[in-house]
């Protein structure tokens, strides 16, 4: 009796062991089986990712998650948004708690190579800026010697800041903070003189202030922050799905495909072969990805093309009022340049 029970326990243990080791089921299959995409986002940065009064997540990064869910699952709402801080995001992705991360995350060499992640592209070209209260009277970051600076820990911000002050031979007092909301609280209470993070994040944070006009962004941009979605190493096909969903949004804008005209354009093959291939009325790009022909059509319909997402969430007509700048299409003098769909 005892012996058999023990042997039974042994077999269970060894099965568990082999199951835990061999995680060879593809991510797309796991998502389909689960019926939901687990997408890591911020803990709340209005315009990029924040829940509204009804608990529905909205924002520019959220739009990417929804587009991927629409492409893979056919439902832009089949997303489980997992709030992550600067510190927890990589652990969450590496451990498989989330399938992809879309959280204002800068593509850097060490994150790509050493942390074993795959950045699938850039959805916002940004740089690190400084915000100060107008009362402070500072007009340049070079005047910040001795200032107390609020920073989010676990970010590139922290490292850039150390380099910037060092290179300019200035001293500062870092106040490490976990989330944007806490940083905002400390900054507004005057516990720090300066808040520094990605310029887009500063604009988004400032838009939520009671008195946005009382705060200025200093002219210096001290780093390159290409922000983009990323996945884990190890499942290249899944990386391709996310990469080409993002490219589909960018290409759609370039090709003039919008959520308004996509129904018409996608109904049957038209005279622009690239639009036809993108929307699946010609060729078998979807099949090559392991999805159906209409994957990109659904992704674009989820929240519109790149330009629509931008305008709706962070563009000039929103309180955040970011100009397209570097994030304009390459045809408009910006850096957005999707590889061709063929």
């Amino acid at each position, binding site marked *: 009796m005892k012996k058999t029970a023990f042997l039974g326990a042994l077999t269970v243990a060894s099965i568990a062991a082999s199951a835990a080791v061999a995680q060879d089921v593809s991510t797309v299959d796991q998502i389909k089986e689960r019926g939901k995409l687990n997408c890591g986002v911020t803990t709340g940065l209005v315009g990029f990712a924040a829940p509204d009064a009804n608990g529905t997540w909205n924002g520019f990064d959220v739009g990417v998650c929804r587009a991927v869910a629409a492409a893979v699952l056919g439902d832009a709402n089949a997303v489980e948004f997992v709030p992550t801080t600067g510190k927890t995001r990589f652990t969450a992705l590496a451990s498989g708690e989330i399938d992809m991360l879309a959280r204002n995350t800068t593509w850097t060499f060490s994150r790509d190579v050493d942390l074993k992640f795959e950045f699938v592209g850039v959805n916002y070209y940004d740089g690190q800026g400084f915000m100060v209260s107008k009362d402070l009277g500072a007009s340049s970051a070079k005047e*910040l010697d001795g200032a107390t600076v609020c920073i989010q820990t*676990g970010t590139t911000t922290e490292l850039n800041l150390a380099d910037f002050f060092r290179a300019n031979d200035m001293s500062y007092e870092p106040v490490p903070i976990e989330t944007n909301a806490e940083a905002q609280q400390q900054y507004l209470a*005057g516990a720090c003189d300066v808040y520094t993070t990605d310029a887009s994040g500063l604009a988004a944070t400032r838009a939520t202030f009671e008195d946005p006009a009382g705060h200025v962004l200093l002219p210096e941009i001290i780093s390159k922050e290409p922000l983009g979605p990323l996945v884990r190493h190890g499942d290249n096909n899944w990386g391709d799905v996310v990469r080409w969903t993002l490219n589909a949004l960018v290409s759609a804008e370039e090709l003039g495909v919008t959520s308004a005209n996509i129904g018409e354009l996608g109904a049957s093959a038209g005279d622009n072969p690239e639009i036809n291939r993108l929307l699946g009325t010609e060729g078998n790009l979807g099949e090559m990805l392991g999805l159906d022909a209409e994957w990109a059509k659904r992704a674009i319909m989820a929240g519109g093309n790149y330009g629509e997402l931008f305008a709706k969430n962070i563009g000039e007509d929103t309180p955040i009022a970011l100009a397209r700048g570097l994030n304009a299409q390459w045809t408009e003098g910006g850096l957005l340049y999707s590889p061709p769909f063929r």
Partner: protein
Amino acid sequence: MTSMTDPHQGQFRLSMLLYDSRYRSMTIQIVALIGFLILVFWLISNTAQNLAELGKEPSFGFMSEPAGYDINQRLLEYNSQDTHLRASLMGLLNTLLVAVMGCIAATIIGVIVGVLRLSPNWIVSRLAAVYVEMFRNVPVLLWIVFIMAVLIETLPAPSAFRKGEASMALWDSVAITNRGVYIPEPLFSNSLGNIHLLGQSSLRFDVSLDLLAIAAVFLAGILTSMLIKRRADAIQESTGDRPATWYWRLGVVVIPTVIVLTILGLHWGYPELKGFNFKGGTYMRNSLIALWLALSLYTGAFIAEIVRAGILAVSKGQSEAAGALGLRPNRTMSLVILPQALRVIIPPLISNYLNLTKNSSLAIAVGYMDITGTLGGITMNQTGRELETVLLLMAVYLAISLTISSVMNWYNESVKLKER
């Protein structure tokens, strides 16, 4: 004796491992041990294999790479080009600082409140009880965050001092701001300088000769004072009269210390508003204050209960007997009750010191850069070495805890009932 059968000898059958009560417990233990070892082996090999599959073989080489980040509160000199090891050392010192400050404050609070809870004055004892229940029954994390929020929101920012809306306290020597408190710092005009140890390594540090000199003189004073006490004890033993020695005992400590301080040219550096912040003085950041207060008040509530229990554990007859012998109440307390109460108090006190030290890892909630914030926070995040950093962190806390408990156990040995 025929009713007792001799145990079978030499006829060992396998089934006896299970059915013979002489062997059964051994069998069960061995099976359990094997099971445990298999589990451990499985966990380790599974982790190693998964990490290898991810291409992240465990390695500690990252500790000697430059950290790249700055730390606000550093007890030794450090800059962002120093290694992760040195950044962790800064964090460790910060952990130890808040733990030591916390243990001292918690003990003081605990003893006072514990005694007050036994006060015959109803209001006083009720107030002490309210304090204990309030702090004991709310998670310490909430207290930390709450105190921090109060500090940030209610105290004036340095800009208020610039505009004249706030002013410094205690004859312009202390600045209380929402970023922290600046207090005067001791400076020496005839400083003896520092000795630099360990060259350029990550563990290098300076020893201040001034502090060394002061400590040496002070300790010598204390030792002399103890010798005087011993002599007074001896005289009391033999003659029954105790010579008055308190002025001698105080003098041998204070006078030489004052002389050394004067020779070194002690003066105070006062904080001054310069640019964005106060400069000069010793800066206690609000994160340190919030963490320290919250940990001490929280642990103090537990210690108060321990102290109360300890005092109650000394039977009433003891103090009555002391009273009958003519001892005054304060002597009864220090000579009769406390020595006996300490025996009950110390063991649970140790575990409260350990708890306080471990709870200090909640520091990150207010951005205090302890070892969890540096090694287990920024270093882990920037290098992606989760397994390694967490293992190191566990080893560090284990070492701190074992040190505390062995020191305290040693102290416990010295106060516990000596049965001869």
